[in-house]
C-alpha cells in the first residue's frame, strides 16, 4: 500500500473519530453543566468542555480551508522575485 494513501486514510479515520469525540465532549459538557450536583467546579469543568469542544469542532471544520489558504498564499508569493537592488 502506498505510504501517502495510508497516511491519508489514517487522517480520515482520525477526523471522523475527532467529530465523534466532539459530540461526546459536547454531550458530557452539557451533562456536567446541567447535572443536579451543586458543585461549582464541576459546572465550570462542564462549561470549559463545551467551549473546547466547540472550538475544536470549529478548527476541525476550518482545517482543510486553512490548509488550502496556506497553499494559495504561498503559491501566490512564490511568483518570480524582483531583481536585486543595485548598490
Amino acid at each position: 500500500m502506498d505510504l501517502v494513501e495510508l497516511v491519508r486514510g489514517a487522517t480520515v479515520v482520525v477526523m471522523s473519530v475527532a467529530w465523534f469525540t466532539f459530540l461526546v465532549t459536547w454531550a458530557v459538557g452539557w451533562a456536567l453543566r446541567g447535572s443536579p450536583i451543586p458543585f461549582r467546579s464541576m459546572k465550570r469543568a462542564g462549561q470549559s468542555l463545551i467551549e473546547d469542544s466547540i472550538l475544536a469542532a470549529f478548527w476541525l471544520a476550518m482545517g482543510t480551508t486553512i490548509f488550502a489558504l496556506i497553499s494559495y498564499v504561498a503559491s501566490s508569493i512564490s511568483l518570480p522575485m524582483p531583481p536585486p537592488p543595485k548598490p
Partner: protein
Amino acid sequence: MELLSLAYTLSLLTYSLGALLYGSPIPVKSVKKWGVLMMYDGLSSAVLISTYSLLLKLGDYLLEVLGASWTYFITWLTGRTTTLVTSYLAMQSIAAVLKASGADVLLEFLKHISNLVATSLAAIKMVYLISIVIYNLRDKILALGVLLYSTPLRIGKSVGAAMIAISIVYYVGLPLMPSFAYIFETSLPSVITEKYGGLDGVVVDALGKPIPYPVVRLYKNSVNPVASVVGGKEGKFSIGPPHSLLPRGEVFEFEVVFMGYRVKPEPTSAAVPWSGELRLYSVLYLGNGLATMLVGIFELFAPASTLEGVEFSLGVISSEATLSFLKLGSVNISEILVDAKKADCRWNSFSWGGMEIEECGVRLTAGLYLVRVVYSGADYPRPRIEDKHYVDVSDVIEYLSIVQTAVVSYLYSYLILPSTYLIILSASSLALSKFIGGGFRLRVV
C-alpha cells in the same frame, strides 16, 4: 514530489490529531495544550511545505543579492587544491632529490612540512566534499527536512528544522567563503617556479636528425660534470625539477656523449631556464646503430636509405679529414664504398655504457665523395649510465625556509580559515533551525 505530498498528508494528520486531543472529553490541561501545539505544528509544517519552491528560490535570490556564485566558488576551490597538490608534489620531488644527493639531514624537516601540506589538502578536500553534497542534494535535503519536520508528535521536528536550516545557510554561505578568506588570507609565495628552472631540449645530429639516447652532461667551471642525464629515444632530454634544482640565471656548459664519443654541441652553454635544440655538427647518425664522426671541415648532403644500406655525399673542405664509422657490435657491415672503391677500414672495438662499440677511420683529402655503406642494422639500446642530478644545497636551505613560510600560510588559509567559516555557518544554521523548530512559537489558539 513524493516526499512533499507525504509531508503534506502528515501535516494534515498532525492537525487533525491536534483537533482530536483538543476536543477530547478529558479535562486535563496538558492534553489540551498538546492538542493546540499539534494543530500549530500541522499548520507551520504546511506553511513550510507550501513554501518549498520559495525556499529554493530564496537561496538563489540571496546569492544574487550578495554577488556570490557557485561556479566561482568551485573554481576557487579547484585552484586552491591545485596549488596544494603542486606544492605537495614539488616537496616530494625535493625529498627525492635530497635523498639522491645525500643531504638526508634536511629530509626530516621536509617530511614535517609535507605533512602540514597534506593536512591542508585533506581540509580543503573536506570543504570540497561538503560543498558538492550541498550543491547537488540541497533540494533533497530540504524536502527530507520538511518531511521530518511534519511528522506528528514532534518526533523529527528538530532534526527536520536543522536540515532545512543547513540546506539554506550552507547553500548561501559556502559561495561566500572566497570573500571571507580573501579578507584574512596572506599572499601565497609561489613555491618552485620562481627560483628554479630547467634545461630541456632535443639532441640532433649535423643534419637535424634526432639522436637516440644521448647522454647530456652539464659542467660549471669544473672538470667533472655536475649533472648528467640520458635522453629519450627521440633525443629529448630534461634536466631540472623535479630531479634537479638548477637556480635561475645560472649558466651551464653542455657536453653530449654518444657512442662513447664526447662532443661539444651547439650552443655550448645556456642560462637556466632554457629549452631548444643541441646540435652536434660533427655527428651524422645513419640509423640502426650506425653513426659517423666527422673530424675536419665538411659539407654534408642528406643521406638516402637504400635497400641494403645508406648512401650520402659529402664534400671535404679542409685539406685533410677523417671520417670515423661507429657501429654497435651487433651491426653487420658488409662493405663501405667511398666513390665506389672499397674503403680500407680496420675495426677497433671498445665498450661504453654496457655496449660493445666498434670504430674505424677513413682518411680523406679535400674533394667531393659519395659514400655508400652496406649493412644490416640493430636497435640502438639505452646506455647503462646512471643519471646524476644537480642540487644547489645552499639554495635548498633558503628554499626550504621559503617553503616553510608558505606552508604555514597554507595551513592558515586552507585549514584554519575554512574550519572557522564552517563553524560560523553551523552556528548560523543552528540559530535558524531554532527559529524554525521551536525558538519562536506562534499561538494559533
